[in-house]
């Protein structure tokens, strides 16, 4: 005659890990966006990425939900294009970047979106980032792609969209947060949540009688 009911008013905190890939033409500012997001820094001159940089960044959506991004920042140069599928193949989300002062970079971005929608995980969350907004703020005539055009395209293609500036940090964190909010936390929770009961250990000190020899060594 023993029953057990658990009706937590607040379930345990959620922690989910997602793979994010950055794609886009060379020199649109992919690495700069990541640098801003992860280290809150900006370099005016950056060498082009030869390879795929790997970084992690954790953000809290609220006091119970933590999302950790595993970011793959890929090389934008054409000669490495064929390697991109290695990085977007298992990605949960992608940030496709273009340079709002370079008309051709949006075409390239659109090609990436198309490729992602065709080849990547069908549930992939794609965000379109029109970077280098700071250049336009200073010299409005430098703008090559209007916000409304890009917005219309993003809406049509079902993408998150914002114009960003890695230099001024404008909309950078907001962009990644928006992605995190759109990620399927509930479903992914089971898969991506690292809640291995075996790893569980009572971390609180002064808990006599509860510290077995099996305390985890990690």
């Amino acid at each position, binding site marked *: *005659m*023993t029953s057990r009911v658990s009706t937590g008013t607040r379930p345990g*905190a959620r922690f989910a890990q997602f793979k994010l890939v950055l794609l886009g033409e060379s020199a649109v500012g992919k690495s700069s966006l990541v640098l801003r997001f992860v280290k809150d820094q900006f370099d005016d001159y950056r060498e082009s990425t030869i390879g795929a940089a790997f970084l992690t960044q954790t953000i809290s959506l609220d006091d119970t939900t933590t999302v950790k991004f595993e970011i793959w920042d890929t090389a934008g140069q054409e000669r490495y294009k064929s390697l991109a599928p290695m990085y977007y193949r298992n990605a949960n989300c992608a940030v496709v970047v273009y340079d709002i002062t370079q008309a051709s970079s949006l075409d390239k971005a659109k090609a990436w979106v198309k490729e992602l929608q065709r080849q990547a995980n069908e549930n992939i969350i794609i965000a379109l980032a029109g970077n280098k907004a700071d250049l336009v703020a200073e010299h409005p005539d430098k703008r090559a792609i209007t916000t409304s055009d890009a917005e219309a395209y993003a809406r049509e293609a079902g993408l998150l969209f914002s114009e960003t500036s890695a230099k001024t940090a404008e909309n950078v964190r907001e962009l990644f947060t928006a992605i995190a909010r759109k990620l399927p936390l509930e479903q992914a929770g089971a898969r991506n949540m690292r809640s291995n009961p075996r790893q569980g250990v009572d*971390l609180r000190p002064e808990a006599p009688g509860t510290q077995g020899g099996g*305390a985890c060594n990690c």
Partner: protein
Amino acid sequence: MASNSSLQRPPNTRIDTTPGAFPSSPAQGQSPTVVSSQLSLSQAVHERKAEYTRLKRIKVKVGTWNVASLSGTEKDIGGWFVDGKGVSESLSGLSLGGEEASDNKDNKADAVVESVGEQEARRSKKKPTVPENDPGLPPTGEEIGIYALGLQEIVDVSSVTEALRPYSDPHPTKKWKQSIADGLPPGYQRIAEQQLIGLYLVIYASSATAPTISSVSTTSVGTGLGGYMGNKGAVTARIVLGETTRMVFVNCHLTAGVEKGSLERRNWDASQILSRTKFDPVYDGGGVMEEFGEGIGDEDFCFWFGDLNYRLEDMPGEDVRRLLMLHTRNEYGKAQASKQKIEHELANPESSTFHRNLEAANQPSGDDSSSTHTAADSSSGQSVASSTTLSNQEAYDPNSDPTSLQTTLSSLLTHDQLHAQMRTRKAFHDGWREGSIDFLPTYKYDVGSVGMFDSSEKRRGPSWCDRILYRTRKDKFAYEEKVRQEELAKKRDNEMKLQGVVEAATDEAVLFDYDPENDGADDQYDGSTADPEVVVTKAGFEDRLHLEYYKSHQRVLSSDHKPLDAVFTLDYDAVDPDLKAKVHQEMARELDKAENEGRPVVTIVVDHHRESDTTHTDSGPKYEGVDFGHVKYDHLKTRNVTIANTGRVPATVGFIDRSVDTGQPRGVSPPWLSIHFDRPSDNNNPNPGALQEYTLQPGDAVNVELTLHITDMDMVRRLSEGEDSLEDVLVLRIHNGRDYFLPLRGKWLQSAFGRSIEKLVRIPEGGARKLQHQRPAGSNHSSHHHPDDKENDAVKWSAPRELFRLTEAIESFTERSMAEWEMKGEEGEAPWEKEAAWPFSGFVSEEKERGVLRERVREGLDTNQPFTELFVLESGSIQRLEAVAETLVQFLKSLEDGIITEELWAEVEKGMLEHEKVKKPLSDEDERMWILDTVSTAPAHGVSFTFITFMLSRVANEVVPIQQQLQRRGTATSFDDMEAVQKSKDDPARARRREVDEAYAAIFADAMIRLPTTLTGKARKNTDVRRKHVVEVFLRSRLGDGS
């Protein structure tokens, strides 16, 4: 802090803080990424808990009531439990004197509180029975953060149907929930409830407190019929307050009765509840689940309440009734029914015990009666019964000393079974406390009366059945420590006794003389009125619990039990969610930073080869990859790459499969490239398909040799056609780090190899290399296939010039080789004597030497340079001949279409089959004629075929010269000829020549004539015979046909 020894070092205390410095020991530089996870994040956050916890105080009200399944009881719940009404001050020995209370209550017009008489008179099941105008005992209403209510007998558990019910009927809880909700101020939320038949536990929290409560788990344990049914047992709830404080609420109903065995059964019930209650695991702040569930005892604070059913023992119940009614009668006005009933009973004393107790009740006590120590400390209970003075009428004086009530209670409490169990460590002894009891026994009353104890036939002896106990973690530990000390003392005592030290010093004897009946009880109750003690909670936070009051609500009339409640003040460190979120964010950032900065880093250096051997065709920025420079067919080229660990942690590196398309060949490198590390891989797996990884300690470096070698003819063809390029990218993955792309490139040098006859005859003067600038490297756009362009631009030769040059060279080197051999007077067998297929097989020169020469031959062909100028001087004619001859065979094999293409061969074979059918063999001459006719339908092929067969017969004739016996050409069909041929067969030289012809034919048939790949088995064998025959007939027919 035992668990912390295994924690990751906090990021800011990393040992290698000097930029660029290597850790003193490589083993210490473990990658933080290994441990950086949700777990370490919550650990790190937890370590800073002091920054995000704030002291909070809440009041917790715990109530318990056996409602005896009486309807109408729910109407009273708000009144007493929430509003604190119904506590009779006169009957709880508080401040008011009995006289004042009794005389005035009935008459005073301005009485604030309804009189007992009025209260009893107006009782109904439809309305609350609590006194009207009762201001209630504070704290009430919103002052309370958590209300925990335990009810017993919300259904009739004495009914067999209910007791044996396999499930709890939730219906009765509804009216309770409704009544409580109606009684509570707005905003209170029900955070937990649990029912077991008649037992119901429900917990409400204020709007401010509710959101801070987590990890709620409720359960129930049945200990009734058969030890498991739910007519008795407990319903329990565990909550975590403010992420720090674990609280357990136990509402129980233990076995009833005074008969023999019922006491033991109650103790057993309690032990079962303790051992069988298991809650769900707690989720800590980081969301990590503990692997164990929790029981009672793992919490910080436990409240155990309910109808524990412990009775007063060794006292006739009737005596107790009468004794107590001496006090309760004062509550009534003279004309009241209850008053008269009580007076009537008191006027008819029935036992001597009654008188003795009466005496005792009125005798001023020498003890400090206000002290709660009295009840607990007097273990004998004899003081009450010791008086032998007989009672007199004065003892009934209603104006007796108000302290006499407390005196009475104290004397009765010495008979309380529960206190006895605690003292004797039979139940509720391990740290449990109870507030001092200054109220009348809560059981059993006539329903509807304030103070009429059970007037039914049974006249049950009043008892404090209903109790509220509590225990802190510290209480439990203190008890456990005490037991440990006692055991130690006992052990030492025994040891001393064994050693014969019986006559130990007296003060020592006190220390070692242990009497569990008395010694253990001293500190069981003293905490209730003492300063609140600091309790180190399980989560390491310091909380304080203070009992504000412990009261029964005497003036609640709707049940035969009086409800009772206790209010506790709890000071605890609660997690401030906003502050915690901030710390959480900071720690996440720090961990990310440590993780990202702690990633392995390598530096890749491409050892640039000779500047002259790179492809500086484009004057763009310096090429960051591996440049193989000019690449030719079958020509090994090697480049070196150094991978150095320039980070602070060990780096495990390895090239990973870079194939991205399904059609693409898998592997870490293109088929034309081989990768060799200068050390065995970590797992030393010789399987080339296995992932090879190499771990580099900081400062360590590994050399990687990349070798390019292109031999695949399809690849050669595609490269020559511009359909493929020598560009690729290797992907070097650093475990837990980035991927490095290592681009490769080489410039393909055009070659005559791998082309078709049709293409070869268009190669301009100067060799295949001249094609280099005719089309942009790496592109093969359709515009280049414009037939007009091709026809016009093409230089037309009758046959590939390469064939001409090679056959010419072979003939000339053959002559020279033999001449040299003769001139040098070499000993032993000549190469051509040893091997019939020589110089096309059975080489005497070393493969390596030949390989170098072959490369020169190819270079000579493609650049139209004389071979002799390219050959190394040391090479002899035989070596040169072998290299040229071998190159010819390779060249023929490399031809895209073959000298005799598949289509041409089909025609030839068709003709042969027809001739076979006729069964009239053609002469060699005729056969030669029609074969040539057939092959020459593709003129360049015909010419090529003639070139080669002519050369072969010349070479054959050189190595096995045959005397010119047959001079008459064109008359081979004559009888004489046939005869001559027959004769020649017997000639050893002719026989040897035949061997040579056959050997050459075998090699060249295969090199020149293309067969469908589908041809297999016997058909293939037959075709092979015919193919060889076709070549052989050309050799044979040229016997002696020199110059």
